[in-house]
């Protein structure tokens, strides 16, 4: 009996998440504590210290919840309803932007979680973060002209999202969704134009459940997303990526680009404040705006320079794998030659020859990555083309082209997706490295590598100029890696 309860503690996903949440929350709290002391003057910075206190309260409460869950699990083998009710209190930590405890609280209050519920929760969280981050602009002397209508629209969308969250929590079950949700689902897909891809995921997921009568398909869909959402780091990574993506889209209307590129000699090297949340750089440009606009280039280059080699490499790899011997040899040996040239050197050479701009940057980073995708695809195609369904397609007289691209490629995509997610991070780093070396985009354009470059010369006197873009790069790359890991776990059949 006791061992069974211990087992319950071990397998409880919520307990693992609770631990994850309090550990990360403690780290953030400690960082805040460290920052609230001014070591030079030997006094306390009150504003930071208050933030620390608030965080400390929620972290302690998180610790208490974790302890209570452990007791419940050991005593009853499951988490008691009263404990789950306490989660509502922890929901308030969302006001402090503590994503770890807030996400956990949403998890705790609902006992039976569908992927749709998780999507809905993260959808609302993302929207909330976008609104909060954008509203920092209110402290500036002026906001961009489209700020108020844009914020209004974003808020209306959030109201809609919250309603959907409640509805999803109430009516959507693991196996089915009520059919009247079709119209809201379509609406959700439309609102995903703001860049909040959780809207899209939720919408698609609902439509799958409404339209599909094939239970096995629903179960497959559920298991895949279950695996991803169960993985705290993967879903957190996904949250961060989607947040940045959405910010990149919304910032067009809510942020003023001039603040990121125009020099302001009246506000050089300002320390972080409400008006300049991350301070200003040596040209008086608002670092906060620069980081936000910088995400756009990092994401664009990251995605584009991954997508291009996926398509080209995938195409070549599929041909090489299907037509063995001669075609295979010619394609792969040519790609081997390309593979032998170090990627970053190739990129530097291309940029030195054709000049530094975003398009060249994308091309330069893409070319070097083609061979690895071709190899991955070829290996998969070699395996898949021996399956019976391929043979039956051949027996039915399908053309080679339709066999490759209708039968084989769709069944070889999973490893490509995983590999792509993992290499986007590399592409983001490469972009920033090239900018740091002065080979990327023009120096005044907000790009994380550019920002870091300026920061590196002020590392001692104004360290935030280097730390913040550094953290942004680390955060995005880490997020892609976590998401990639999660996707691998979810898509790899051997992990079942």
């Amino acid at each position, binding site marked *: 009996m006791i061992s069974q309860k211990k087992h319950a503690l071990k397998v409880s996903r919520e307990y693992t998440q609770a631990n994850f949440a309090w550990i990360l929350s403690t780290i953030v709290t400690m960082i805040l504590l460290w920052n609230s002391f001014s070591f030079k003057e030997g006094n306390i910075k009150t504003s930071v210290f208050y933030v620390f206190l608030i965080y400390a309260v929620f972290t302690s409460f998180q610790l208490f919840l974790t302890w209570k869950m452990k007791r419940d699990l050991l005593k009853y083998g499951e988490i008691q309803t009263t404990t789950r009710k306490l989660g509502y209190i922890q929901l308030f930590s969302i006001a402090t932007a503590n994503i770890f405890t807030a996400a956990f609280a949403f998890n705790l209050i609902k006992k039976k979680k569908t992927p749709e519920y998780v999507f809905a929760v993260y959808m609302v969280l993302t929207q909330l973060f976008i609104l909060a981050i954008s509203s920092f602009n*209110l402290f500036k*002397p*002026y*906001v*961009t*002209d489209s*700020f*108020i209508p844009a*914020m*209004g629209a974003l*808020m209306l969308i959030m*109201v809609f999202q*919250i*309603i959907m969250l*409640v509805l999803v929590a109430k009516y959507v079950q693991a196996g089915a969704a009520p059919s009247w949700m079709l119209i809201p689902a379509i609406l959700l897909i439309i609102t995903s134009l703001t860049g909040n891809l959780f809207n899209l995921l939720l919408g698609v997921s609902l439509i799958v459940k409404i339209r599909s009568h094939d239970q096995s398909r629903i179960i497959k869909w559920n298991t895949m997303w279950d695996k991803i959402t169960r993985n705290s780091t993967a879903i957190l990574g996904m949250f961060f990526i989607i947040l940045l993506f959405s910010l990149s889209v919304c910032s067009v209307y809510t942020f*003023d680009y*001039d603040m990121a590129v*125009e*020099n302001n*000699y009246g506000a*050089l090297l300002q320390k972080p404040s409400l008006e300049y949340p991350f301070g200003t750089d*040596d*040209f008086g440009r608002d670092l906060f705006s620069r980081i936000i606009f910088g995400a756009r280039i990092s994401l664009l280059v990251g995605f584009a320079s991954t997508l291009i080699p996926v398509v080209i490499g995938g195409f070549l790899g599929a041909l090489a794998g299907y037509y063995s011997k001669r075609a295979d040899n010619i394609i792969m040996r040519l790609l081997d030659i390309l593979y032998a040239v170090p990627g970053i050197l190739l990129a530097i050479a291309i940029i030195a020859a054709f000049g*530094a701009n975003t398009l060249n940057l994308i091309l330069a980073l893409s070319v070097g990555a083609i061979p690895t995708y071709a190899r991955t695809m070829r290996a998969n195609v070699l395996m898949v083309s021996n399956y019976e369904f391929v043979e039956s397609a051949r027996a039915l007289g399908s053309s080679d082209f339709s066999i490759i691209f209708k039968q084989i490629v769709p069944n070889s995509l999973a490893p490509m997706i995983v590999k792509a997610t993992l290499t986007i991070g590399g592409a983001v780093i490469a972009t920033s490295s090239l900018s740091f070396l*002065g080979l990327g985009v*023009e*120096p*005044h354009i907000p790009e994380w590598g550019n920002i870091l470059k300026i920061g590196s*010369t*002020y590392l*001692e*006197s104004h360290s935030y100029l280097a730390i913040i873009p550094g953290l942004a790069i680390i955060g995005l790359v880490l997020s892609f890696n976590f998401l990639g890991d999660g996707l691998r776990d979810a898509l790899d059949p051997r992990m079942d």
Partner: protein
Amino acid sequence: MKKSLLAILVAVVLVLAGCVNTKSDVSDKANDKTDSKTDQSDVVMELLGMSTGEADMNIVRDQLIKNGFQVKLNIQPDYGSFTAQKDAGNYDLALSSWTTVTGNPDYAVRSLFKSDGDNSIMSDEEIDKLIDQASTETADQYTDTYNQLEQRLVFDKAYIAPLYNSFKAQGVNKEVLNVDTVRLAKSRAIAWESIDFVDTAKRATDPLIVQQAIGTLTSLDPIKGNDGSINTLNTNMYVRLVNLTDDDVVVSDGSLSINHAIAEGNQDYYFLLRDDINFAAITDGKAVDSGERVGADDVVFSLNRAKDKDSVPDHRTYSLHESMQEIEVVTDLSELEVKQSGSDVTVKEALENGLESKITELVEDKTAADNATGKYQVVKITTVNPFPQVLNYLAHQSAGIVSKKQVESINTYDVASFDVNKDIPYGDQNTVTEGDKYNNTLYASGPYILSHKNDYEAVFLKNPAYMPGTENEAKISNVTVRFIQDADSSLAALRNGEIHLFNGVPETKYDLVENESKLFLQKSDSNAVTYLLFNTKNREVSNSEDLRKAVLYSINQDEVLNYYQGNKKKAVSTVSPLVDTGNELVSDAAKVQEFLDAYKSTK
């Protein structure tokens, strides 16, 4: 419950929205800059520069954009590719800088703006005339001429758009070096001989460690180079007829001459030579006295080859010395009985000023000279035209005195058919680089001699026969020059004690050095001016004066000074640090608009 909460939230936001200033509200109030920016003009300026000037380029870009231009940046990683782009004419504006190392205004304009100057891309008769006129004038007369020159060059014709004049800053490790002995001169390179340790007992044992950015030395023959790789090194290796003080006054202190005098008419210059300097040579890794005195024949030889374009292949400094017509040894004492320029005393009396034993005899042979018994050597230099600023050029490192005997014995090749693969000229850096080709044939007339170098450092040894027993004798026996390219790395090396002296602390890092307890920051004016050079060929800016003026008045030097935290000074031209002409460039958005409209109407 949740919905009502949201309703309240929306209401609050709407109320807040009422109090929010939008961009157009604000720009309506201020009603300029943002307007001109929105009407995207089609005047595109291509700005060429090096990555080291990225900050300046960004400031200029921002100012031009705010004044209705579009800017295309062309940033090159190094000086080589920058010059290649410049030669190809791929620019409207080139970010350029100039340092007048001789400390005289003529040098600051002659090679840059005169039609036949080495570095000139322009040709304007009026400017040529003003430059020539000013060169014949003395300091009190030329202020007005240079004022007219600036008017023409900058305000009337806008051939350049000035940005700023830099300071010179030097970080000294005051725990190791005696700060009072470290000089920081406006123009001249740093003199090592005066530098001393705090603990003077270490003079013979410990090296003085300094830093230099470039490790590839152009040439150790003084006339074959005029750049950052050798200026300091050759200055300390070869003595000159005269020196510059820290604020650019020409003096004989610490030079080969005891005194010098200008004869009436400003065309004849007399130098009374010392007899206590011998050339040093390197034998078995030690600096030894070669036994050969530095005398008048070496001076005549050195200056004649300095002014002769064909004396060596790759002569890089002859244009500085073209003003000299004749250099000769004076043996007739009566020749010194002419009046000194602008005074009643004779040249002889001027040369004898402060001497213990007066001049009784002038000798031709340098070994016969003995100052204690009144036997001296005198060198006379005659210039083509009256040109008092010739003295500044004589204080430049390229006028360093080399050994006639030694240079003639090494440079045996024929100049016209010089083969770089076969012939080894005097001062070739390969002869002092560690390895098979090492064969140090240098003869140094200055306080130090280069022993050997590699990619990492160069080692200098004290010349044992350089004014021994005087205050000009070198204090520290060994000097090591570390080659550290990057300013930030050099600063780090200074802070962790790897080097003792760092000349060239970046403006944004002054406070770091000042806050470090073991370091001392020396700051002084410098002659370095940064400006934008307009292309003079095949571009819109080359043809339209209006367009150039529109750019000129877009430049706001106050903002530049702001960026550098006040560690720069305003400038109008490369003459600004040397002559106070009273001119100032004031940015004026109205003028910019006016000139831009004028330019557009002619198109």
